[in-house]
């Protein structure tokens, strides 16, 4: 059998798998810019907090619900862990992949709804975007994260739909996971900085 220019026999194709799939590399680069975006916001918050006269949180402002949000934080972290398990099940072609992905999405949905309820309560107590430094930073930081959670939630719903139609491949699932892990991973830092 004749060989090609690289010495391989004809008719045997070389592996065409890229070093890093395009979707994964693109998502990693996007998440890197998002990390810098949140780093900038957190840095601004740290400096604003250190500059506050009369201590932090500013006197006369509503207190943030620390305990309730701790529960919500646990739900989001659990969502990340369940997504990790869903990925493992997906790799092994396990039948419970769909169920695990659904649980992960449900926990993400719980986080969004819980935070929405928390915002309604805080606005009722007078904490708005323009009520002071605390309100401004709170809605900027937590609001930016909430937008990302909603985006991640939609992406996970899309992957679930594709999984239901047996159209999901790892090159679609990986980027979705990377984004969700970012959303899950950045939240404890925000919780620690903003709430505690």
């Amino acid at each position, binding site marked *: 059998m004749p060989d090609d220019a690289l010495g391989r026999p004809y008719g*045997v194709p070389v592996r065409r798998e890229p070093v890093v799939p395009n979707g994964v590399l693109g998502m*990693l680069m996007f998440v890197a810019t998002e990390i810098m975006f949140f*780093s900038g916001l957190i*840095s601004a918050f740290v*400096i604003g907090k250190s*500059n506050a006269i009369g201590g932090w949180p500013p006197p006369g402002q509503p207190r943030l619900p620390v305990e309730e949000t701790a529960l919500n934080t646990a739900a989001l972290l659990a969502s990340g862990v369940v997504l990790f398990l869903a990925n493992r099940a997906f*790799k092994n072609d396990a039948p419970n992949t769909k169920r695990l992905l659904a649980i992960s999405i449900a926990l993400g949905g719980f986080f969004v709804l819980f935070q929405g309820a928390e915002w309604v309560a805080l606005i009722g107590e007078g904490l708005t975007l323009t009520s002071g430094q605390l309100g401004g930073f709170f809605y900027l930081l937590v609001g930016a994260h909430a937008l990302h959670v909603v985006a991640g939630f939609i992406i996970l719903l899309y992957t679930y739909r594709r999984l239901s139609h047996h159209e999901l491949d790892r090159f679609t699932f990986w980027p979705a996971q990377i984004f969700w892990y970012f959303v899950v991973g950045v939240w404890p830092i925000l919780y620690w900085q903003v709430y505690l």
Partner: protein
Amino acid sequence: MGRLLVACGVLAAAWVADSASACPSCASPLEENRQAFVDTTIFLTVVPLTLIGGLIWWIRRRVRAMEDSPEIAVPDSILGDAGPFSKGR
């Protein structure tokens, strides 16, 4: 002789130089605020370097792993026109 003059010049410059505040806020009277500026400067310097460095390290590791692994031979009859990604798992 020229080197000696340069060395003397550098030493003289070091002797007379005083610390300079690079930003107006760094001269804040609040110690906590000054410290926050230092901390966030370090943070915002380290984070992008870590991100880019980590990505390069990870890609390099994957390249090496792929170079070490044997090639997978897939007959064209299975591969078809769509390529391996359409089969995908």
